[in-house]
């Protein structure tokens, strides 16, 4: 059983390595154009270059990463801090929830990119705008998840709580809240994903720092290998952070988390 698994991993690795080699070969022999399909060797060179010299000069990949992560975290945390209490309140009042539901769905469905021209007019082209765009994207996703978490608490748990005489705020605090936590966590992970989705749009304006800006800058100079590096770094970052959140969730909710339905 184990042996077979190792074999399967080895086989998958071999296929991937083979594909990369084939690609490299295709470029070397001229079947693929390097500026269209930069081969792995060129991507690796490009990575060394932006890790040391930076692109443009002085801005290394590390500072691009730091800038982007800082922006995402600011917007993301702002969204969470706002969405949790608002969602808890809306979820507590079914009437309010029903009334606001279409609005929330609507706001969530608005692409942040289309807000770009408005937000620039409202908040200028500085850091604030970028953070607000990220926060906007994260907020509605988190909000709908917090509300759903509260609304879909297993009614049996609520009845159990009530059978011990709990009601009102106490019932909400002692039963509804903890029972809603796993779903809220799932929402938090979804919202983070949205934060990453928004970052390139947010960094299209007023900056040459950050991974989104790096990708656009590389585009201007036809450095497709740097574009790809920027994309891959975002991919890896997104993957690492969401894995980290899952681990955090397991730590904070030891009674068994619901990683189910955690992705959009």
């Amino acid at each position, binding site marked *: 059983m184990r042996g077979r698994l190792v074999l399967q991993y080895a086989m998958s690795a071999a296929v991937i390595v083979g594909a990369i080699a084939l690609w490299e070969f295709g470029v070397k022999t001229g079947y693929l154009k390097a500026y269209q399909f930069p081969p792995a060797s060129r991507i690796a060179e490009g990575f060394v270059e932006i890790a040391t010299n930076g692109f443009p000069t002085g801005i290394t990949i590390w500072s691009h990463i730091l800038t982007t992560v800082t922006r995402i975290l600011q917007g993301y945390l702002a969204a969470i801090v706002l969405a949790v209490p608002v969602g808890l309140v809306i979820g507590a009042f079914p009437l309010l929830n029903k009334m606001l539901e279409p609005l929330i769905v609507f706001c969530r469905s608005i692409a942040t990119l289309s807000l770009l021209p408005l937000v620039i007019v409202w908040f200028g082209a500085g850091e604030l705008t970028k953070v607000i765009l990220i926060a906007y994207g994260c907020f509605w996703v988190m909000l709908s998840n917090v509300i759903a978490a509260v609304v879909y608490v*297993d009614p*049996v*748990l609520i*009845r*159990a709580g*009530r*059978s*011990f*005489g*709990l*009601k009102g705020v106490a019932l909400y605090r*002692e*039963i509804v809240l*903890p*029972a809603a*936590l796993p779903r809220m966590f799932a929402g938090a992970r979804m919202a983070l994903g949205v934060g990453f989705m928004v970052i390139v749009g947010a960094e299209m304006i007023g900056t040459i720092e950050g991974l989104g800006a790096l990708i656009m800058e590389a585009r201007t100079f036809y450095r497709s290998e740097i574009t790809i590096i920027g994309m891959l770094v975002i991919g890896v970052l997104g993957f690492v952070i969401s894995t980290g959140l899952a681990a955090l969730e397991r730590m904070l*909710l*030891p*009674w*068994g988390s619901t990683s189910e339905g955690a992705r959009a």
Partner: protein
Amino acid sequence: MQISNVTKSFGAAGHGPTVLQNIDLTVRENEFVSLVGRSGCGKTTLLNIIAGLERPTSGTVEIHGREVRGPGQGQGVVFQQHALFPWMTARKNVAFGFRDKSLSKSDKEERARELLQLVGLSAAADKYPREMSGGMQQRVAIARALALDPEILLMDEPFGALDELTRIELQQELLRIWEARKKTVVFVTHSINEALVLSDRVILLAPHPGRIERDLAISLPRPRPRTDPRFVALHEEIWKGLSS
């Protein structure tokens, strides 16, 4: 406990179909009463009304002469399943049952330990529900209900999801606890055997609308071997009552 002329219908302002109609029932102190009936005949609804979790459309339920207007008036409830709080360990779940504000946290945990011992789960005190088998979970649920020190223990098919052997073990356990703690018990079940093994009285509910069809006193001494001809005869009688 006194149930007087309780009627219940769901839907807008009680205008839906009538689920329970004119239920009258008196349960004496320390009595063990089972409710038996076909699926959908209103057993759970009646139990919920007694628990104060649902309001009757008309009629009253009184416990010790005080009308029930909500939960937490001396009723403890054990649900069919999944009713443990998944974010609490067994001990915390039981400790939750002590609603007495004057108890310190450590007092509660101490007493919870005692109750867990009573249901034979000392070793599993720090397990989360998902780490326990169905039978263990139901023991914790019973301990939690007992923590409230209720006058009446209401149980809604508590052993319905368990396999037969575990079920029989827990029936013995429940009888032992009932005798030790002297509680009034209202017990909902699908199983005629279970009702016969446990109860002083078996109430047969008939559906559409839910009403009391038979009220049988079971005077056999406990423990009650299923082989006892009187047991067998009673089984037959209830079976006929239900099938009709």
